[in-house]
């Protein structure tokens, strides 16, 4: 009980402390930021320990007569762990990346507050609290998106807020309807709408939910804000726009499918048959557009759009294997994508090269960085020694077992296009003039390279021993399929 409160508060309190701290003391601030992030992560892990060992943590109350609750179930806990762990890496990377940037106080304050809010999304036990934190996440991350404060950043910020609020509006209407039909918004008692069975308008409701959460999950055609938001500093692009914020959308859709409708009801609905096609389309279209992008961060953004739909596809198969693949992909994709973004950030910072076409030979200047980047690229294709191999395996297995075999094909084709998307860059990086000076020296660079290499290592480790995270995945699947 106290663990969950402390996990949620450490970021918020930290953010407020940082905001009130005078601008001057850089070192002290970084120490405090690290301290609060570690605290948040430690308490999240303790929450996870309780949940996975079979305990329940529940915190509930009323806002204006409406019941809310915080009750992490296995799915929420997995999301929370991803957020809490990767936040640490991104924080350390930020120390290096942001060292000579202006407005660090605002940056770290909102980074910490956003940490709290993202954990809140993960640990929510009812639609109401999920909605609250989902809305707050938009506002908490907005200052990070417009960190550059130039016209382009402001425009990206407006787009981000506008898309998110429209999505949240759709969700609010859907929640009101759900409240009317189910009488409760709490996830703890099994799928909310399952008891009512099929009824007219259910498809519309699902559509509203998917459209609402789909904004942050960047389902095409609701993805337009994401490439624009790449104007943010790289750690933000890596953490928020590849993992935390976009995952809150994905997580919302997983919740809707498995906790609001339930897989049995979903299987009876005609509308749910269309959803894998939307995800399949986004997978292919996203990665194809990604190959056309010359600016590396934009390429990564479109690639994110494609990869998020892998997770959604797994969820939409409505099959245990598919869900297992989706959860596994949530874990494995996040490690790899952050590695890719971190790599792109180091290249941009150390060589000022942001375009793929300029990156010939950077591998010799930044060997560790580009090696990690290469490893992550292999992962995006789904090669064996990497964790994404397993997620793809289960996704395909789920598609076939769920009677949706065309999507196994989509995944294979997407793998090939992924190869086209990243391998040329990696190969080019390691061709050309070998005798260049290394640019990986100096304290700040180490702070950036170390998390990158470490994450690539974790990805390989999870690829070799997928059993490390399998119990978590299994718990999630069991929580929805075995009741």
């Amino acid at each position: 009980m106290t663990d969950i409160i402390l996990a949620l508060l450490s970021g918020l309190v930290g953010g407020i402390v940082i905001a009130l701290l005078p601008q001057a003391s850089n070192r002290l601030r970084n120490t405090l930021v690290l301290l609060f992030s570690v605290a948040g992560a430690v308490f999240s892990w303790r929450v996870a320990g309780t949940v996975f060992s079979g305990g329940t943590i529940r915190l509930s109350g009323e806002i204006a007569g409406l019941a809310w609750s915080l009750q992490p179930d296995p799915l929420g806990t997995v999301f929370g762990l991803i957020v809490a762990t990767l936040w640490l890496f991104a924080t350390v990377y930020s120390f290096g990346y942001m060292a000579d940037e202006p407005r660090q106080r605002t940056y770290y304050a909102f980074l910490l507050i956003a940490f709290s809010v993202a954990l809140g999304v993960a640990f929510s036990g009812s639609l109401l609290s999920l909605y609250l934190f989902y809305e707050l996440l938009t506002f908490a991350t907005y200052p990070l998106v417009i960190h550059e404060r130039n016209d382009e950043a402001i425009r990206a910020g407006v787009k981000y807020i506008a898309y998110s609020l429209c999505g949240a509006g759709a969700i609010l209407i859907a929640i009101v309807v759900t409240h009317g039909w189910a009488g409760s918004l709490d996830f703890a008692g099994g799928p909310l709408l399952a008891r009512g069975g099929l009824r007219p308008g259910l498809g519309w409701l699902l559509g509203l939910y998917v459209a609402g959460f789909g904004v942050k999950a960047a389902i095409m055609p609701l993805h337009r804000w994401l490439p624009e938001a790449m104007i943010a500093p790289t750690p933000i692009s890596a953490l928020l726009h590849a993992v935390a914020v976009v995952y809150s959308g994905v997580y919302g859709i997983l919740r809707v499918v498995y906790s609001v409708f339930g897989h049995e009801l979903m299987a009876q609905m005609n509308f749910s048959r269309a959803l894998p096609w939307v995800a399949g389309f986004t997978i292919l279209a996203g990665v194809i557009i990604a190959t056309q992008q010359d600016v590396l961060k934009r390429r990564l953004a479109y690639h994110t759009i494609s990869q998020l739909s892998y997770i959604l596809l797994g969820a939409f198969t409505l099959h245990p294997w598919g869900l297992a693949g989706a959860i596994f992909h949530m874990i494995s994709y996040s490690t790899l994508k952050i590695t890719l973004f971190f790599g792109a950030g180091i290249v941009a910072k150390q060589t000022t090269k942001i375009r793929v076409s300029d990156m010939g030979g950077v591998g010799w200047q930044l060997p560790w960085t580009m090696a990690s980047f290469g490893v992550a690229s292999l992962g995006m294709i789904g090669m064996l020694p990497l964790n994404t191999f397993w997620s793809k395996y289960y996704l395909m297995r789920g598609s076939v077992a769920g009677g949706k075999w065309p999507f196994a094909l989509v995944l294979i084709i997407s793998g090939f296009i992924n190869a086209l998307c990243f391998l040329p860059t990696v190969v080019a990086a390691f061709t050309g003039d070998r005798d260049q000076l290394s640019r990986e020296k100096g304290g700040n660079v180490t702070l950036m390279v170390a998390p990158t290499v470490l994450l690539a290592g974790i990805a390989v480790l999870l690829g070799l021993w997928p059993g490390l995270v399998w119990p978590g995945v299994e718990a999630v699947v069991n929580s929805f399929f075995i009741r």
Partner: protein
Amino acid sequence: MTAAIRANLPVFAVIAPLFVAFVLPTFARRTRLVEGLVIFVQAVGLWGTAYLARLVLAQGGLPIIYEVGGWSAPWGIELVVGNLGAFFLLVVAGVSLPVAIYASGNLAKEVEGARRRAWFYVLYLLLGGALAGMSITNDLFNVFVLVEVATLSCCGLVSASQEPSGAEAAFNYLILATLGSGMILGGIGFLYIVTGHLNMGFAARALATVWQDYPHVVWMAISFFMVGFGVKAAFFPLHIWLPDAHSVAPSPASAVLSGLAVKGYIICLMKVLFHVVGPELMQVFSLNRLLVLLGMVAILIGSILALGQDELKRRLAFSTVAQIGYIFLGMGLLNVKGMTGALFHIASHGIIKSALFLAAGAVITQTGKERVSELAGVGKKMPITMGVFTIASLGLVGIPLFSGFVGKWYMLLGSLGAGDYLAAAVIVAGSVLCAGYLFPVIRVAYFEPAPADDWQEPGVRQRLALILLAMGIFVLGTIPGPLLELALAAATDFLVFN
């Protein structure tokens, strides 16, 4: 003595501010005393209304009926402190007190001369007394008198700022509002012709039996009421006077005008429509559809017009037009949820819009900048003021934890319950547009570099008032308790027991 006061509390709620208002000019030059007395009267008023509200809640919604002068209805005038009356009395008292505290600190910078300021307070108390009267009177002619008192004091408040545009705005308002008063009087006249009663309860009973004999007269009466109160409540498309009047008035006046005065007319209209005309008759005349339709248009057009305003107070004034649309929409849904949402929105918008106008007023008096685009960096120089502005904005947009969410939640429940999906979509779209016109202010204030000017936070009293209002927004959003209960009970009174 106390028993006598307690027994006569309903009439004191109206008379006390009026009485103090008449006394104030005798010592107009002693500003301190004037301010102290105004704040004292408001504080006592808040205490008294809280007592009345508790009494009503304890009686399970049974109204406290007070017969003025001992004359019983239908001959005498009745004051009825029911759920609705207690609810709106609480709103009026709860908003007036912080605004009075703020005014005591800020008015010296907005209105010149001690005498002029004393007259401002006279009008302020007259308005408060009239609003209190509107919330509890049960007599149609009394409604007209109170509406006139409120209208004239509003005009005075608008022109209290000595700008030439203030006089112009007040004059425009005066003409339209007088037209509205005439309409209301006409409506009352027609109703009296048909029913022979001015007491709302008796008129309602008579109307229910005879309206089929005089459908056209009743139709005229309702139209007159709709237009008359519509003008005064700035219901789209009769809102044209509002942006000028509310943006040019001194900030405490803007706060009560936008936060309370327009709501007073809406409460009166609600009483006439639901207590006298009744929901069944409203459906016969398709009034509910008209209310929903115009409400939706008001939300959209008001918000879109607000988007285009660079002058901060004008932007807030257009926002009021949109928010009034919400209240009418909730009213028109004709179900308890929608009505509760509309009533709660009266309270939450009252407190939020007052906070916004007061914060804007503080920014304007401290910096001299009136335009949103000139406010770069204000958030860093005036953290409390802009902090309250931010909380109020989140409240108006309807983020959970803040009061705006509760009203919108009930209105959404109501519109979906009525099967009106378009209305639900408009309610949500209004929220997004609201973010569109309020968040740029916050962005400019916090995320643009501050100029070197030495801008200071306003004085202690202004800060105290702002913080009180911000706390109110938060409390109403998390534990609205009695206020929500009263709104729910009042909505049930309107729709079920008729």
